[in-house]
Every structure is written in C-alpha cells, then in structure tokens.
C-alpha cells in the first residue's frame, strides 16, 4: 500500500490507524469512518486481510432499546456481555447464549460460525439479528427490514450471518431480545440409557421448555441429566414439570446429584447423533443453545469446532457469489 493511502487513512482515523508488524490496523469509531476507510482502500486497490485489517471494537454504541417490541439496536463492536448489561435494567436479555458466544462482539457473533443463532422455546433456531446494517464492498450500506418475519424474497441477511464478512461487514444490528427471566431452577434426573435421556430432553425442548443450559454425564449404568430452566416463576415450574413427566415416561427418575462442570475448552456444535456418541464415551458435557437441530457443547471431542476459517459447503457457489458481490476482492476474496 502506498504512502499516499496510508496518509489518507491516518488523516481519517488519527491514532486509530496503527501499523503493527507491517500491517495496518484500522479502528473506526463510527460508521462514516469505516465507510471512508473502505473507500480509500478501494481507490488504492487494497484488500482486507492483505496487509490491512479493520477492527470494529470501537464501534460500540447501544440503543435505542425498544422495550415494547423487545428489540435493541447495537453496533458491531459491542461485546455481547456488555450488550447484556445494557439490556438488563430494561427487563430484557439476549437469552441463553453459550459462554463462548457471550465473549464475542456482536459483529463476530453474527458473522462467525455461531451465525448469530439462538434457540427459542419450541426447539427452533432463530437469528438474534432482526435486522442488520452492513457495508457492502461497493461502499453502499444495506439495511435489512426490521420485521418479525418476511416472505419477501430470499433472506439476504443469510449472506451476512456466518459469512465472515465476505459479502458485507455488519455495522450494526437490531437484535431480538427475550424477557429477562424472573426465575431459574436446576433439576437433575437419572436415566437408564443415553437414548432415553436424549428422547426426553428433545421432547421437553419441543414442548417449549426454555433451558439456560444442561449437563449430561454417564455414570456406570445410568446417564445423568441436569437442566437449568429459566423464565417466569410459573414457566420454570411448568418446564420442570414437563421435564419430569418426560423423564418418568422414559424410565428416568429425579436425582439430587449435581453434575460436574466439564473442563473449560472449545465449544463445538453437535448434532443429536454426535451428542449421543459423546455421552456414551463417558465425557462430562455442558450443553447450550439446545434446539431440535443441534446443540452447542463444552467438553466434547467431536462435532464442529466453532471457529472461523473452516471450509464452507458449496465453495464454488459462494466463490462465484463473492466474485459478483465483491469483484475487487476488497473483503478478502472468495472464501
């Protein structure tokens, strides 16, 4: 990158344009700085990840928070833990996300392997992102429509969610919140086998039970499950009643034993078949984002590590799409 462009970036960003090991790190604070920096890069034929990187960590304003609709606007650099702290006094929460997710900034949670997904009652996955504003490679800003659901063509935010910034950089998002739980209670059950445990757990999730987390561990001939239900006081009691009924129907019984937390480690996304294998191998697991399709687990060895940089399915198709959307490869080129 020539000195002229570097000077332009320094003029734009001041001390938020730093050189480290020969690479430029740009840290815009507001949207127009990011748009301006990208324009300079584009004019110079620069490419992100080729000697230049953009950090959105300083773009961290939160608001407005709409308590009536339970949604909140936040910039991409807001850590989810910080967003959660902003929501809490307003009676809202992001809902039960995994510790690994909560450690991320909003932009990274949406664009990375979490793809901005959370589990909602009924065992469904739902995007945390109700609407997003994203900077496109040509410098335009795309604002998706903030509607609960739409039948207005393909869901174009799917290009942003899990897209690792290849098709657009998330600037800000309106996130769906949940009502802050007024109660939380943990109960443990012992099952005669893994299949019985998983059947009961999946049934309870499909029934609408809302779990902050669960733990599972095989001990001798029994398999133990511990769930932490959250919600209204009535809701928590109802959920635990449902779990109990499901457990008894599958030969389970309540137990007072607490399950140990697994060793801290990577979070992995597991299908339910993967999960059965992990339990049968005797590992102590902690489970999050429990839904009908998959779970996120700590303590597992299999499944998919939630880490950026893995190979995408249909690479040819997405490469062709990257070439169409970002012909100069300013966002790093094809995945």
């Amino acid at each position, binding site marked *: 990158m020539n000195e002229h462009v570097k000077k332009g970036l320094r003029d734009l960003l001041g001390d938020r344009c730093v050189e480290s090991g020969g690479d430029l790190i740009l840290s815009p604070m507001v949207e127009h700085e990011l748009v301006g920096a990208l324009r300079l890069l584009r004019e110079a034929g620069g490419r992100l990840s080729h000697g230049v990187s953009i950090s959105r960590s300083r773009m961290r304003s939160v608001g407005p928070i709409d308590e009536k*609709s339970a949604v909140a606007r936040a910039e991409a650099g807001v850590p989810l833990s910080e967003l959660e702290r902003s929501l809490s006094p307003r009676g809202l929460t992001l809902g039960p996300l995994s510790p690994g997710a909560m450690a991320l900034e909003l932009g990274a949670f949406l664009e990375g392997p979490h793809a901005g997904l959370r589990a909602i009652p009924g065992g469904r996955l739902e995007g945390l992102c109700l609407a997003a504003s994203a900077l496109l490679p040509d410098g335009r800003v795309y604002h998706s*429509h903030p509607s609960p659901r739409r039948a207005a063509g393909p869901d174009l935010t799917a290009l942003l969610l899990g897209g690792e910034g290849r098709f657009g950089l998330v600037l800000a998002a309106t996130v769906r919140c949940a009502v802050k739980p007024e109660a939380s209670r943990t109960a443990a059950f012992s099952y005669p086998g893994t299949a019985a445990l998983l059947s009961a757990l999946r049934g309870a999730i499909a029934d609408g039970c809302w779990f902050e987390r669960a733990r599972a561990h095989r001990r001798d001939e029994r398999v133990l499950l511990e769930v932490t239900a959250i919600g209204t006081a009535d809701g928590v009691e109802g959920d635990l009643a449902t779990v109990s009924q499901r457990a008894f129907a599958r030969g389970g019984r309540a137990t007072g034993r607490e399950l140990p937390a697994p060793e801290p480690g990577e979070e992995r996304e597991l299908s339910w078949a993967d999960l059965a294998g992990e339990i049968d191998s005797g590992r102590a697991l902690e489970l999050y984002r429990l839904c009908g399709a998959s779970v996120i687990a700590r303590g597992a060895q299999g499944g998919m590590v939630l880490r*950026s940089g893995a190979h995408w399915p249909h690479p040819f198709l*997405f490469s062709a799409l990257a070439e169409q959307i970002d012909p100069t490869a300013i966002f790093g080129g094809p995945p």
Partner: protein
Amino acid sequence: MPDVSQSAEPWGQPVDAAALPPPRIEAASLAKELAQSSVRTSTSDQDRLSYSRDMWPRALIWIRQGRIPPPPDAVAWPANEEEVLEIVSRARERKVALIPFGAGSGVCGGTWATRGGIAIDLKRLDEIGPLDAERRCVDAGAGTMGEVLERKLATKGYTLGHFPSSMYMSTVGGWLAARGAGQMSNKYGKIEDMVLSLRAVTGRAEIVETPERPFVGPDLSQLLIGSEGTLGVITRARLRVHPAPEGRTFRGIKFRSVADGVEAIRQVYRGGLRPAVVRLYDPFDTALVGREKPSHRRTPPSLKAGIGAELYPAVARQVAPLALGHPWALNRAADLMRNCLLVLLFEGEARRAAREDAQALAICRKLQGEDLGEEPGRHWYEKRYDVSYKMSKVIDSGAFADTMEVAATWDKVLDVYERVRAAVARLAFVMCHFSHAYLEGCSLYFSFAASAPDADGLERRYRELWRAAQTAAASAGATVSHHHGVGLLKTEGLLAELNDGRRLLSALKRVLDPDGVMNPGKLGL
C-alpha cells in the same frame, strides 16, 4: 414506494381466453424435444390455459371478463429430479423461460408466464420418505400436497405443524418458494423454520443440496427459500416433524378494543407462552360473528374467510355491488364498533397445554378480557380450511375481494392498522385480523372488498387500492409480505424495501441463474 398504478403494466397484460396466442416457437420446439426424451409435456391450449393463472384475485376478475393472464407456451410434468435437471439444462441452452408450478394457490401472480416459457408442474415429485422418528424429520418431494403429507405423518403419530388455509391445494415446494406460513406458525414456526435441508436444481442446471447443521458459512437454504422460482427449482426438502399433540385447548376472549386485544397478545408472549394459534379479529368481523344466535355462532378462520363465509352472505349477496361501490359508509359503520374477539389455541403435552391456557386467560383478564369459553376456538378449528374456495363467489357478484398480509414490530402494529384502514377507506371495505405473533411483533392480515360500475373501473379501483394499502403499510414500517410472497403484485414494494439489497439479490440471480431463464420478471429479477 413507487407508484405501481402508473407503471407500464408491471403486472402483465391479459389475453383473450377464447383465442390464445400460439406458443412461441422456441418454447414449443423445446417442449417437443423434451417429449422425445420421455418428459411429459403439452402445448395444447387447454393445458396452457389451465396453467396461466393462480389464485390472484386479479386473475379471477379477468376470468369473469373472459380474459386470462398471459399463458405459458407449454407445460411440462417431470417425473423426477433428473427430468427437472434435463428441462433446466435444455432451457438454459435455448434461453427459454421456466416457471415452476406447485398447485396454483398463490395469490400474487408468482406463476404467471408474463414472458412465456414452459410451466414446470412439480406435482409428480411427490415421494414422501420414511419418517425418521429418532431425528424427527421426513423427506418430502416438492410436489407433495400439504394435506397428503400431514395425513401420512398422522398415521405415524407425527405432525409437520404447517397448516396454511390452502392446505388442500398447495405443495411443499410452493410453501418453500413463497416462504409461507401455516395457521399454527406461532408454535411450529414458518416454513423456513422447519427446513433442515433442501435440494434444488439451480438455473445453472446443477443440483445443490444444502447442508444440515452443524455447518459453517452462510445458510444456503435461506437463500433459496422465498426465491419464488427465480433461482432454481426446489425439488425436495428435509423437514422437521413433531409428535402429534396429545392435548389441545380452545379459548375465545372478548376485548373492548383492538388496542387491548393486541396488548393481550403481546403480554401472552412476554409471559413466555407460545399458543399454537393466536387470532384477534377486529370489531366488524367480531360483530358479524356475534350477530348469530349463540348456538349457531360462527367464527371465521380468518378475515379472508370473513369475506367468504360472513361478509358475502350478510352483505354481498344483497347489496354488494352497490354497497361495496361506496365503501366509505361501510367503514364508518365499522368504526362505531369496538369489541374484538381473540381466539387462542394451545396444544402439545396435555397438562402443559391446559396450564398455558389458564395462564394466558389470567393475562387477558388483567386487560379486561372476557372469557367466552371454548366454543369460538373450537368453531375456528373446525372451519380453518374453509376459506380458500369461496373467493370466486365475491368475484361473481361483480365485486372483488383480496387480502394483504404484512408484519411489523409491536411498536408499529397499531399504526400500521390505522394507516392502512385510513388509506383505503374510500376505496374498499376493510377488515383486519392480527395473527402469527412473535415476541417482537405480529402479522396484520387485511381483507378488502370493493366493487365498481364496470370492468375498467374495477381494474382501476383494484390497482388504486393496492397502491394505497402498500404505501400506507410501508410508511408505517411494515414489511411488504409476511407469508403470501411477492410474485408480480408486490414487486415494486419489495424493491423499495430492499433498497441497496437489490444488488445482493441480483448477484444471487447472476450466480444461480446466469441466463435468466428461471421465472423471469418475478421479485424484480
């Protein structure tokens, strides 16, 4: 919002039903070529006429006048995915347009052959795979009729949970292409929430199968769902299923105003409850329900049904052309009414459903809701599919009826309701129900009925009505469609809503359908 009424026929031109234009040579020749390869095809006028229309009321108005939407040049009935692939591959070479066709229940002109081409009827792709009870999923071909799939699942003790009012005349592929919703989406989600993976033949003439979780990268399924045939032909889907509910509760609750009823729905969701069905009828519809003797009280399954089942016999048969020609007076009369009916239905594990019903009732009572017992809910359930076959009676009376479903967050819902009613008050009689609720908002389902002295007047009024309604809804912050899709009807609204997102949509089109043969003209592509 662009003025669609002033555009140069963005919705297509009618043709004389008694004198169809001959099929275009390229398409007819391709159909013949496909037939020689054992793909069933036809270029007969009868078949072309049959596939020229969907259930868009505009087509129904034309048909009453002896006109039809532009017909396809030919029709193909592929027997399997390989034949779909062959059709797309050859059409791509010959640059012949293809229009995927399910059961024709769309209401937006999404299957109109505005640029000719071959309609691909997918109903022969109707294979239903074995139920995977452990993984709780089933594979279904795109041409599988909704009711057939649900009946098969029921024999195994399962349900898909997708119950559109078009259940008897819509297919899995149509649901996916239009991003549809069933009446119980509150509990089971919209169709996009039910898909684990799908298969499609893209406009590149390549088969893609989207991955199941876990995977990294963008979710390709969500880019194909809702594409309305513009990117490819969906051939098969793996769908999530649920054990059939062991218990179900029904409840009707009367509120003193729309605002109270809407707030009750919001509070129910904030209370962590997830009814399978939530429907709040606005005052005029509630009044129609209540005017009958209690033993014969009827609850329409929707306001579209209100028009078909209630408004039509009560008003349309006697004075429809006259009264609906002056809708302002009817709307003023409706303004004087206040009471609203909320129907709630919970289902699932029996004790849980009963518990949640009681909790919801307690919430409603705090908002001055009056418990009407089970009957309104039961009646709705019994009549829930009655709607889709009665619209033509309204058309036959010389009037028209149509529906517009939008969605908005809770902070905007009442504004959308008021603005749309105000905008169309002089053009059509209007009613609305609120349903498909989420923690952050809900869908508003408007029903319109109007008439005009002659055919041209009817067409003008229809366009003016849609323009006014869409403009008002968009200005209040609603999305252009919640579950009917876009087709031709809402193209302008979609493009306005997408704004710079059009570039992303166009890029998708260029990659997945580089020759532009897939359902051209829809979604603005």
